[in-house]
């Protein structure tokens, strides 16, 4: 399970937003902006399979490229695997690792 929360910042309204929540939100926004990802993430939970929802391997690669740009990270070869791009949570987890959070 991917844990939301973690170290983070308090928003102006007083609610606490963890860093991993922020990553998840950015991943979700990225997917919405990536024209190749024809999956409606708003109807999916963090752990739901993107592949089952219709993302093919080619779209997952396009999504990866976009996220590399968005987060200024590079997914190393050992992370270029199906299971890493299985869900919003697994992607956020990988990005969190790369960002060192």
């Amino acid at each position: 399970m991917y844990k939301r929360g973690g170290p983070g910042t308090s928003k102006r309204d007083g609610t606490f937003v963890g860093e991993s929540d922020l990553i998840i939100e950015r991943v979700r926004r990225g997917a919405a902006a990536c024209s190749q990802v024809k999956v409606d993430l708003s109807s999916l939970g963090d752990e739901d399979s993107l592949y089952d929802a219709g993302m093919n391997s080619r779209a997952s690669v396009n999504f990866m490229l976009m996220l590399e740009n968005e987060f200024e990270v590079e997914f190393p070869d050992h992370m270029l695997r199906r299971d890493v791009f299985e869900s919003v949570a697994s992607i956020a987890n990988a990005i969190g690792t790369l960002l060192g959070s």
Partner: protein
Amino acid sequence: MVRRDEVARITPSPPDIVQEVGRIGREVARPAARAVDAEARFPAETMAALKACGALGGAVPIALGGLGLGVAALAESCSLLGQHCASSAMILAMHHIQVACLVQQRGRSTATDRYLRRVASEQRLIASVTSEVGTGGDMRSSVAAIEQDGARFTLTKQATTVSYGCQADDLLVTARRQASASPHDQVLALLLRGDYVFTPAGIWDSLGMRGTCSPPASVEGSGAAWQIVPEPFGDLAAHTMVPVSHVLWASCWLGVATDAVAIARGKLRSEARAGSGAVPPAAQQLSATGAKLQLLRNEVTAAADDYDRLLAVGDRAELGSLGTALRMNNLKLSASRLAVEIAADSLAICGIAGYRNDSPHSVGRQLRDVLSAPLMIQNQRLLETNASLWMVGKWEL
């Protein structure tokens, strides 16, 4: 035909079995190949001989009564058979691919283990029903869905092509997990003979690979819960079905290409002998084609060995990695291109004798058979996929 109860026999041990498949190729498949092609009929005598030596249990683990062959040994046997009858080789390859998918479920389901025992002991032939009307050729998308009906499920599917569906014992069918699932949320369901009705919806009158008997068909069947493969089909396709398909298909094409070069060599040798030992001018072309054949063979064996190595260390994540996908897509692209080139070269070397159907140096069947290679999963589609992979991969060049 070999009767089921006669199948308990002395099974050759690997790698004897690989040589035995080669012998069946020479002695059974080759004499029948012309008729199989001309009549577009199932190579029944070859399949019976393969069953009699236990070859259909090739991919079943030894612990379950099979021969426990790795992909490299399966590939070699397909290649040896493909030197004599491409359709027989492709049927054997497709069967092994289905078995390999089920073997990957070991440890998840004892019922599947029991079924694999039956595959080995009864030499059951499994056909694949992955194509479907309305999916645009995308294997990773289904219209048909599993319908739960009490303790059992039912399944109805209209396939665009099913190879040897009429002759198979059992079917492995892709379908959506349930009626409410998305087209991509797929599972693989095993349908056992007696539990399904298979109805061809046309004939198979093709340019080549005519003995695979692959018409459009409808399938209507039911099964018990265990017959739905637990692993999501997407994962299974990535780590087993697609890479094993690429390796075994390429092995079949390697066999056909080898056959074509052997015919060309035979033609030139008889010319050389008739010409008092002078080397015919076309022999230079033969040497260039021989070099291509060597490239093809090395690519196929290297890919098979790579896959076996990853399987041996149990690295499923690596098997399903984009790097492995790229590597196997490259194998398919290279092998299909080279095999067609080699067969066309062989025709050019043989000249009119190769073009004639009634000549001992005819390469018409080999060329027609191997022209299917770039079409079995369109090469253009693989190039598009690989193009994306190149943008994101960091592997060393």
